[in-house]
């Protein structure tokens, strides 16, 4: 057991290591953790309101099962490609006398710890719900053991499937794995389309979990569901014990450290590399030549070429294509326009973050080129900011324009929203990224920086969101809407100009 705990400690130190490197990393991590708590309070309040309104939670079994199934899909799909280990593990751990069982047990402990760190919202939610709903002891025990059994079931299954895929590579096995995953993930279809199946009637592990949790929240004890979940847990444990006897170390595949606290961003850089391979096969189309007269125009063209080749532009297009399809679906089903606007409000904020973090991943190591060139860094910052903002605005604007004709929606508010989000979002994210560039903050993890940027962006966008909600609630007339839109655009532009200046000043102080 000592070896298992040693390896577990090592895994924790490597994964969370950079948090120890600087106080800012630790601070940002605390902000991240605390920032999740409102979600827990919101969920708890929602459940309490439902129960006070006399709504039966059991009716939501299928919905909860579908959500958990979707999460399970994300968790298990990677097993299809075999057993991945971090490079340091293959180099130092798997070459030591450690056995597969010890390695897997340490991994299991690590997975459960990390799950609790990143999904801390769930235990907090259950604690608040337990207090506000005055749950009895058996109900609390049922929630605890159901959640534990399901998490362990997932972990056992993931490891067993990954070992099988790594050791017994072959079409038959892949087909079996594919079928098993498809069957297991079938309830997730309910998230995207109407399936004429009630999962409550089927013996799915996710259904048992949903029945146990929802039953416990209403102080009911679904004994059959808990027995079913326990059986799944025991079955997965048996498979895990069997597969862990196999020496799968020679069949593992190394990958760079993939941690939100990792500062090297090598994994993201590898993904960019794959995109570059794709874009080199396709015609490059755009080329950076000497035709642009002004330096700013030249640098903007260079940034645009980067976004076209590293996948930034494609990701943005895909993102808004999916949002537009949801809109089309919502409108064709006679759904109200606000549903789509709320989705746009919630998700459009992600695009500036995505674009800026991609710039950081691709350009951070090459910053020595502009910094040692002697050029005026104002041009450098402006070119990046203008391009990011243009892409973050024009792509959704194009989709909104198309939807205006196809789905007959009013384009004013969505356009104002994306204009404001792109101006405030891109300038905030770029400022934060530049603020944390350089050797002093090199140890600050990229995920934490992105998280703080999102929080600041959301705060600065409060007037925009308030306007959007009030306009919908009070059904404001066109002249009032237009006047308020103009004020919002001016406000967003002022924030943009202010942060753009601050970023330029910061850029002068970057040390590498």
């Amino acid at each position: 057991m000592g070896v298992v705990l040693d390896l577990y400690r090592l895994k924790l130190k490597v994964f969370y290591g950079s948090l120890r490197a600087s106080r800012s990393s630790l601070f940002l991590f605390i902000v991240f953790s605390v920032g999740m708590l409102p979600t827990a309070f919101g969920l708890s309040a929602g459940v309490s309101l439902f129960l006070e309104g006399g709504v039966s939670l059991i009716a939501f079994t299928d919905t909860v099962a579908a959500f958990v199934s979707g999460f399970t899909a994300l968790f298990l799909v990677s097993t299809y490609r075999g057993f991945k280990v971090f490079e340091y593990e293959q180099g130092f751990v798997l070459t030591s006398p450690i056995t597969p069982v010890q390695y897997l047990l340490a991994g299991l402990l690590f997975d459960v710890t990390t799950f609790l760190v990143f999904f801390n919202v769930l235990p907090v939610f259950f604690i608040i719900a337990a207090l506000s709903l005055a749950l009895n002891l058996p109900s609390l025990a049922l929630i605890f053991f159901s959640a534990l059994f399901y998490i362990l079931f997932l972990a056992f299954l993931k490891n067993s499937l990954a070992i099988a895929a790594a050791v017994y590579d072959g079409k038959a096995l892949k087909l079996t794995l594919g079928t098993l995953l498809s069957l297991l993930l079938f309830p997730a279809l309910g998230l995207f389309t109407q399936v004429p199946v009630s999962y409550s009637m089927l013996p799915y592990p996710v259904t048992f979990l949903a029945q146990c949790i929802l039953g416990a929240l209403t102080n009911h004890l679904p004994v059959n569901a808990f027995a079913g979940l326990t059986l799944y847990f025991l079955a997965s444990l048996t498979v895990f014990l069997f597969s862990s006897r196999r020496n799968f170390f020679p069949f593992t595949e190394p990958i760079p450290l993939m941690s939100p606290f990792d500062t090297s961003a090598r994994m993201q850089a590898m993904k960019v590399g794959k995109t570059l391979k794709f874009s080199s096969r396709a015609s490059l189309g755009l080329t950076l030549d000497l035709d642009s007269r002004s330096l700013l125009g030249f640098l903007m063209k260079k940034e645009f070429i980067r976004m076209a080749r590293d996948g930034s532009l494609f990701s943005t297009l895909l993102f808004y294509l999916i949002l537009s399809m949801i809109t089309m679906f919502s409108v064709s089903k006679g759904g109200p326009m606000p549903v789509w606007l709320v989705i746009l409000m919630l998700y459009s904020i992600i695009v500036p973050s995505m674009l800026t973090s991609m710039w950081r991943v691709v350009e951070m190591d090459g910053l020595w080129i502009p910094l040692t060139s002697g050029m005026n860094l104002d041009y450098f910052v402006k070119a990046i900011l203008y391009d990011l903002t243009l892409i973050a605005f024009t792509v959704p604007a194009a989709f909104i324009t198309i939807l205006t004709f196809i789905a007959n929606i009013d384009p004013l508010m969505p356009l104002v929203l994306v204009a404001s989000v792109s101006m405030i979002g891109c300038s905030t994210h770029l400022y934060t990224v530049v603020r944390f560039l350089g050797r002093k903050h090199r140890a600050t993890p990229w995920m934490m920086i992105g998280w703080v940027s999102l929080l600041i962006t959301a705060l600065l966008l409060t007037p925009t969101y308030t306007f959007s909600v009030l306009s919908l609630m009070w059904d404001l007339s066109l002249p009032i809407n237009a006047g308020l839109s103009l004020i919002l655009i001016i406000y967003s532009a002022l924030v943009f100009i202010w942060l753009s200046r601050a970023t330029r000043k910061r850029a002068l102080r970057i040390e590498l």
Partner: protein
Amino acid sequence: MAEAILRLTDVWKAYDGVQALQGLDLEVFRGEIFGLIGPNGAGKTTAIKIVVGILRMDKGVVTVGGRDITVDQYGYKGLIGYVPEMVSLPDYLTIDEFLTYAGRIRGVPSLTIRERMDFYIKAFNLEEKRKTLVFFLSRGMKQKVAVASALIHDPDILILDEPFIGIDPAGQFRLKELFNDRIKDGKTVFISTHMLDSAERLCHRVAIIHGGRGLASGDMENLRKLSQAGADTTLEEVFLKLTEEAVQPYPEEPAEKKAWSLFRFRGRK
């Protein structure tokens, strides 16, 4: 006496309280190949980064072509071409595009960029790869492209941090030829290297630094005298003798840093 193109006077730099440079003095003259050598952690890269303007010194004076780099913070960079130790170039650009970019941000006229680009691409045997994305190049090729980009504006002083790592023998030979061609034109080459045999053959003068301080500098004859070595002593032997003898007293911070440091780190102490 030759004119100094680069001069470092009493340069200090600390990282989180650890002194990387402790009053370093250096002088590099026009028309010479100058080598900066020292053990790991001696402060070579720190000194170079301060000169090229991507790191600020705590104290001291650095002049390039007679210009104080803290006064003329950008203009002096036009005199410098720089290639870092770990070359990282924009993977998403082709060689042609990257050299165009390097030229434009240094304000080189379009026609000149085209001429120099053609010249260096030919000189480094990169003709077949010029339309290839940097991502697909080998480490050695990327190093050559980085050197070409550092020369695109024909700088007075070319500064290279470990230039021979990752380059094949033919490439190294070509690079050394290029350095010699440049000094014939009155330009200067400043290299930091661990390859002492190359430094001995290539450099006119060498400075040995240790613990952020200069131990000795001059041509081979001077260095042998300073180390009290024989006439046939190699640079490697001189280097080992001097660095092993080097006394390392407790690092003393510059006077004006002390008050600030005391205030800043009081909590930690």
